[in-house]
């Protein structure tokens, strides 16, 4: 019996090729999108699940409140957290602290030298908290000795290949360490580090390790079995409020410790400052799940729409089947087996598509996801998915079809249950929804595109092209930076060199500057760029008042300050010209003698330039010459013969610090890096927009097919009465254009609101023009007309006699 159903279903699919194709295409598309999203969502939830007793582990972070920044979550904690938790709370089994080594250090082993960027200095209990899988060596006492180091498999491979490196020596910035173990990199661990050294190696002074205010360590606690983390958190907060808040108040900052369950770290820390965890975003995960569900519902709905449209054509088949004795249930089964077969084919194709697209998605998300198709559980899931989708999508058309009255249908009466004046709200509502989503995405895509273009093309106030950039290394180089600079300038390919601390796209220092005015000394918080005489020239920053630093005027190096336009305003100097000559004091960055003041005056004002990303507003900025802070080198090159120039830089480097390899970048590259997230968002939006439009069109196509089929007779009558082809096309299209216009009305304010919110993050942003909505609306209407027009024209061109013939 069942076999019979499927045989007949198979024939029926073959008979209606284009219909089957459309239906399978739509469903496949929806399922593929769902599968990909489901994989992503599932993967995001797998973090730290491998850690045994993980439910007893919490990360301690702080909710910090300052006057200037307000309240924010910070992953950095003071060292006393762990000490206090361990000593004063019997609920705590153990506490763990580690320090994130944020800068690159030079590794040297087995004859290879590489700068490594991701490591931590941890207390010895690290592997009891996080029992990573050891490939070589053992976690036991692995961090006991101050010169021990544990490395990841990927780091080990870079130096030792597949060889066992345990017992071997690694030099880190020339200090020797001994490898105690190698752990397997785990992509599902929230700490993606390549090496771990003992915390004591960092040599933090004992008094600092007893501080409540120095926040620079990550803290984790493991509670005893059965202990309620929230209660402990509350107790600890109380302690901090009582004992620590009085100390903190003096600094204008307070904090409250918070406990975060281990399994929440990956998804619930998106807004944390100074976090080193591999982070996802629960909002995205939830949003994507919603999108997946939406896509699936829409795909099923479109299936229903198309199938119902088709069902009108099959009314006669039903009449015949019924008149020869088929029961309603048999008919329902018959039609359901058709939709299940369709769903099954779609699931099959979408699995193939998913496998095909997965490498691309992995690349895009930086993940390593896989769809284990041969896993029996996954297979079972896929088969049930076909049946569920098939039943959901097929039930309504099956009911409608099987419910046709044989006599009525065979006599040629109208088959659809048309009632005058009654609008199919659900059907229309869903199409409006689909198109609203399309319009929303079209608008968002345009706005994001514009903003990214704006970011890329905005005049930054300096020239970032052709500037090679690297840090100085080794005492010889740092100590003789003048000589190093002069030798770099020897090459004809080098047009200028600047050495300093505070280059665009790199770290900058924030510090106070003092303006003596009358008898008072007022302190302002500004960005300090520690520069040399060639900084302004090398970067092409424009001087709008006064002058650049000059070597001829020796006091420039000891008393000269140059400020930017914003600083002129913020420090209350009036105009740039008026700012010239104004006195400034700065507390010099040296420990001895304390309170030594550099007293000088403003000698020049530069135009504001964007040394940070356009997310941030330009800050009041002070440039001064302060060689002790010199660290980074910027080499402006001429366009001709870059290879020879690079060679010259390398040779010069090697003559000063041969023990360090040269690692360099380019300034414009690091600027592009800052907008990587926006680029990804842009790509993602185009994809989603394309998807939404496709799905929306499919829905509209089905609806139009249905309408054309249902109104076949009416169209015939109208043509007999003199309607032209245009009349009919307009008649059929206008309803849909109305639907699209409604969706435009719904989507536009939402899109405006969302995009306005997104743009808020940028200090420099575009305005959303009205034309954006016009363009999106026009695109949506055009797309809708193209989709509907196909059916409308087909219906209008039909010979009316055919539709009016009565047997």
């Amino acid at each position, binding site marked *: 019996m069942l076999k019979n159903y499927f045989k007949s279903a198979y024939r029926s699919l073959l008979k209606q090729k284009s219909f089957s194709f459309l239906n399978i295409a739509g469903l496949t598309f929806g399922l593929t999108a769902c599968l990909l999203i489901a994989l992503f969502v599932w993967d995001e939830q797998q973090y730290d699940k491998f850690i045994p007793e993980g439910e007893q582990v919490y990360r301690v972070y702080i909710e910090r409140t300052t006057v200037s920044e307000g309240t924010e979550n910070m992953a950095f904690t003071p060292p006393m957290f762990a000490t206090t938790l361990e000593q004063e709370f019997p609920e705590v089994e153990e506490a763990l602290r580690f320090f994130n080594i944020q800068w690159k250090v030079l590794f040297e082993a087995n004859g290879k030298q590489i700068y490594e960027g991701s490591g931590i200095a941890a207390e010895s209990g690290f592997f009891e908290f996080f029992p990573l899988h050891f490939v070589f060596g053992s976690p036991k006492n692995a961090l006991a000795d101050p010169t021990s180091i544990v490395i990841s498999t990927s780091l080990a491979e870079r130096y030792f290949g597949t060889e066992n490196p345990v017992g071997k020596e690694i030099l880190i910035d020339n200090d020797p360490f001994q490898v105690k173990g190698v752990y397997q990199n785990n992509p599902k661990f929230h700490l993606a580090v390549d090496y771990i050294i003992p915390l004591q190696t960092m040599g933090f002074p004992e008094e600092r390790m007893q501080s409540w205010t120095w926040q620079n360590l990550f803290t984790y606690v493991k509670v005893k079995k059965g202990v309620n983390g929230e209660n402990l958190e509350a107790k600890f907060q109380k302690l901090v409020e009582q004992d620590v808040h009085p100390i903190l108040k003096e600094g204008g900052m307070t904090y409250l410790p918070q406990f975060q369950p281990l399994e929440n770290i990956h998804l619930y820390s998106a807004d944390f400052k100074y976090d080193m965890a591999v982070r996802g975003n629960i909002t995205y995960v939830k949003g994507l799940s919603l999108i997946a569900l939406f896509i699936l519902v829409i795909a099923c709905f479109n299936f229903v729409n198309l199938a119902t449209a088709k069902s009108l054509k099959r009314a006669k088949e039903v009449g015949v089947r019924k008149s020869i004795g088929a029961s309603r249930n048999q008919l329902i089964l018959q039609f359901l087996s058709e939709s299940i077969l369709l769903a099954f084919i779609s699931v099959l194709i979408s699995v193939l598509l998913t496998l095909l697209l997965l490498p691309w998605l992995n690349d895009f998300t930086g993940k390593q996801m896989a769809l284990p198709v041969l896993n029996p559980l996954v297979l079972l899931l896929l088969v049930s998915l076909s049946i569920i989708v098939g039943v959901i999508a097929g039930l309504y058309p099956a009911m409608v079809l099987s419910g046709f009255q044989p006599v009525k249908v065979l006599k040629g009466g109208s088959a659809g249950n048309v009632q005058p004046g009654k609008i199919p709200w659900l059907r229309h509502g869903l199409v409006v929804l689909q198109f609203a989503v399309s319009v929303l995405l079209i608008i968002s895509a345009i706005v994001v595109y514009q903003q990214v273009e704006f970011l890329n093309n905005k005049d930054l106030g300096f020239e970032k092209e052709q500037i090679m950039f690297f840090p100085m290394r080794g005492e010889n180089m740092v100590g003789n930076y003048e000589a190093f600079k002069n030798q770099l300038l020897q090459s004809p390919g080098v047009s200028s060199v600047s050495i300093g601390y505070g280059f665009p796209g790199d770290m900058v220092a924030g510090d106070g500057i003092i303006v003596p005015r009358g008898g008072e000394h007022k302190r302002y918080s500004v960005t300090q760029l520690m520069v040399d005489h060639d900084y302004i020239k090398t970067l092409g920053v424009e001087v709008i008042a006064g002058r650049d630093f000059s070597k001829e005027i020796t006091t420039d190096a000891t008393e000269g300050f140059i400020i930017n336009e914003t600083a002129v305003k913020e420090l209350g100097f009036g105009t740039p010209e008026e700012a010239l000559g104004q006195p400034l004091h700065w507390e010099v960055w040296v420990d001895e003698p304390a309170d030594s003041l550099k007293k000088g005056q403003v000698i020049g004002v530069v135009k504001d330039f964007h040394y940070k990303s356009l997310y941030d507003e330009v800050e009041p900025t002070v440039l001064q010459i302060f060689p002790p802070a010199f660290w980074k080198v910027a080499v402006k090159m001429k366009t001709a013969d870059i290879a020879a120039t690079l060679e010259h830089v390398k040779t010069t480097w090697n003559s000063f610090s041969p023990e360090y390899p040269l690692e360099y970048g380019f300034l414009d590259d690091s600027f592009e890096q800052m907008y990587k997230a926006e680029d990804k968002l842009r790509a993602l939006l185009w994809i989603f927009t394309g998807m939404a439009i496709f799905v929306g069109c499919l829905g509209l196509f089905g609806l139009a097919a249905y309408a054309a089929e249902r109104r076949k007779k009416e169209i015939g009558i109208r*043509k007999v009465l*003199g309607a032209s082809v245009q009349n009919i096309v307009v008649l059929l299209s206008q309803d849909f254009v109305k639907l699209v216009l409604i969706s435009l009305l719904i989507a536009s304010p939402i899109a405006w609101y969302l995009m306005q919110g997104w743009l808020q993050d940028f200090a420099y942003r575009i305005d959303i023009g009205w034309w954006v909505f016009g363009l999106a609306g026009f695109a949506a209407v055009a797309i809708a007309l193209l989709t509907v027009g196909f059916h409308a024209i087909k219906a209008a061109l039909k010979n009316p006699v055919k539709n009016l013939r009565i047997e």
Partner: protein
Amino acid sequence: MIKITNLVKVYRTEEMQTTALNQLNLEVKEGEFVAVMGPSGCGKSTLLNILGLLDDPDSGSFLFNGIEVANFNERQRSSLRKQHIGFVFQSFNLIDELSVFENVELPLIYLGVKESERRKRVEEVLDKMQIMHRQKHFPQQLSGGQQQRVAVARAVVNKPHLILADEPTGNLDSSNGNEVMELLTDLNEQGTTIVMVTHSEHDARYSHRIVRMLDGQTVLTDIMV
């Protein structure tokens, strides 16, 4: 008014081809009331469709008011049709979504008649057909006889010279049927030419002349007295 000579219409489907009209000749004079009779499948409806410019013949000549229209294209046929021809069908063919008034108004819209003029003419014709009180109703709320009266009203609202009726009483009981025949006779007496297909000898008696068809040809013409 109508002169048809050697008209041929062949339907081709995948499996076979049917000669619906085979070298058919027919002449209808201005003001005549002609009934076409014959067994099912002999080509009556096909003939009516061609007379109504809904379909084009494969060969032969079709003079309409002295103009050869056999080779007219879709647009030319449509414009001729909406000005000169009205249709009445066995199954009424009213549009379910439109009210009685809107159904009758439709041909005038396609003719491009102004709204005030349309209202006047529709009300006039509804009044004549005695269905004025039903103008706001929808077709499904009317009886068969009422529906056919609406259909006749729609057929005559643009004051056509020719009315083509395909079994107009086929779905009606005899009293309703007679009412429709009276309507058609009235129209004919006011000068409208009528060609009507019917199975009923009774209805045929309202006409001036009966054309009998067999296998796509006219075989006999009875003149009424």
